């Protein structure tokens, strides 16, 4: 083993040491960037909101016709006053339906109501994915999901 060869080995090991540090730094940076992108998307969604419900028809006027309700990710609907969307209607159940935003789309699920939940005029019997523009009927209250 010449002194020259040893010197080269040391130099290579030296750069390998710092190299691994940078490799790790790169891996960390990638994870951090992924976070930033998720944060950006969430912020975007928060700015525009994830969706609204506009009331089209409401015989008891609670919620009033024409009102546009901003939605959170999880919305309970029914005659129970603690519901996110309080529906005052004799044909609605206390806990009538659940409207949720999961991943990238909206879902509605009937919570065992007496008169059922209707989407675009059809009664649903399991969780249904919604598109913007779909009409939901709870009792006699008709609402439209909008962006």
């Amino acid at each position: 083993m010449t002194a020259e060869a040893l010197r080269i080995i040391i130099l290579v090991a030296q750069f390998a040491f710092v190299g691994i540090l940078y490799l790790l730094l790169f891996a960390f940076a990638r994870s951090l960037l992924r976070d930033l992108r998720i944060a950006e998307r969430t912020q975007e969604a928060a700015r525009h909101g994830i969706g609204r419900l506009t009331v089209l028809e409401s015989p008891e006027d609670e919620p009033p016709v024409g009102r546009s309700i901003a939605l959170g990710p999880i919305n309970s609907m029914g005659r129970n006053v603690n519901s996110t969307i309080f529906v005052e209607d004799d044909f609605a159940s206390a806990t009538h339906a659940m409207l949720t935003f999961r991943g990238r789309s909206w879902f509605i699920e009937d919570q065992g109501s007496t008169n059922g939940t209707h989407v675009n005029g059809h009664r649903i019997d399991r969780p249904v994915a919604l598109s913007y523009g779909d009409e939901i009927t709870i009792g006699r209250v008709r609402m439209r999901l909008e962006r």
Partner: protein
Amino acid sequence: MPIAWRGTELRLLLPLLVLVPLGFALTHVVQTGVLDPGPLGLAIAYVAAILAAHLALVLLGHRGDQLLLPLAGTIGGVGLVMLNRLPQSLTGMSIFGADIGMAGTQFAWFVVGLVAMVGIAVFFRDDGALRHYKYTWAAAGAALLAITFLFGAEVNGARLWLHFGPIGFQPGEAIKIVLVVFIAGYLAENRALLAGAHRQIGPVKIPPLPYLLPMLAIFAIVMGIVVISRDLGTALLFYGIFLTMLFVATGRRSYVLVGLLLFLAGAFVAYKLFGHVAIRVDNWINPWADPTDAGYQTVQALYAFGRGGLFGEGLGQGLPLIGGHLPIPAIQTDFIFTAIAEELGLVGAFALLALMAALVFRGLRVAILARDDFSSLLAVGLTTSIGLQTLIIVAGNAKLIPLTGITFPFVSYGGSSLLASFVVLGLLLSISHRSAVDAEHDAGRA
């Protein structure tokens, strides 16, 4: 609850299996001139200890942040390589009569720290004990401070140490964490009042006097530390943490402005009145006025940075002895960053700082994701303590600000500092665990 494998954490920890032993082997080869890796037991034990902490988190079903441990492990690994490269006779403890050297002692503290971290991360699931007894904690911190003033041992003119038999302990590190807990509790409770109320004086909005009082109290404590225990670094750190948390809680620039003005006024008065402050500042402005005595440390550090250059002198090849001694006093604690900058160069020093920045980024992410104000402010304060401490000591090393004796978290030699850093990490893990569990709960309900 299903097991979380923490795959990201494991993936990011594996490179340490090469990094730390490589650093040890490289040091041995350079120091002996023979192509033989030498003893790698300590390096492997270090990585094994961190992997064991990872495994414990997996087995105990922890769902906290997966980047914190690998980041701290990498930063600590570079520090251990550097401590192993320095002469082992500098300092260190012996356990049961066997001298384990400086790096060995640091490793022992790493194990203690990791155990504390896992313990806090896993069993500390309810922050009520911190939140509700904040005044008790503050009183305990103040008592600890007072005990240190009265009974502490004096080292280099600063009274910072308490001794329990053979083990020395720096209460400042514990007080730092207690202070963050107290400020987080106080601000979480009074946040709306502090952010809302103000009085208009000219163009500046000034908060009314009752809300200024806690700020003045903290200011008084900090000045007390400067005057009585003469610990400038800790004083600067405490004050910086306080101002940062106040700003985050209220979003009011006027608090920061008033705080900084108070700080400048206090610093000026301290400079005029106290010799030990004046010496630091004069050394900072011109260390070449007395390069062999008062300015020696700073001047030698600047030479070391210069020798290091872009790629460094090489591990084990820098730090030429001057009169049989290492060129910079306190190189294993206050000046460890200078040693790394000399031997690994700008590229190595930058990598270390970038890793630290990533750790701070991650800590702030924990704060953002936290579900309640107290946890969020706690995470901000703890993260700031690590980040600001790094800034203060690195800037002091590089003569950007006056030098103050303070440690580089996870890197500097020292048990109290290392243990405190791991307690911070454990608390951050525990906060992020709680937000992750809550988020899963929400998703499950949906």
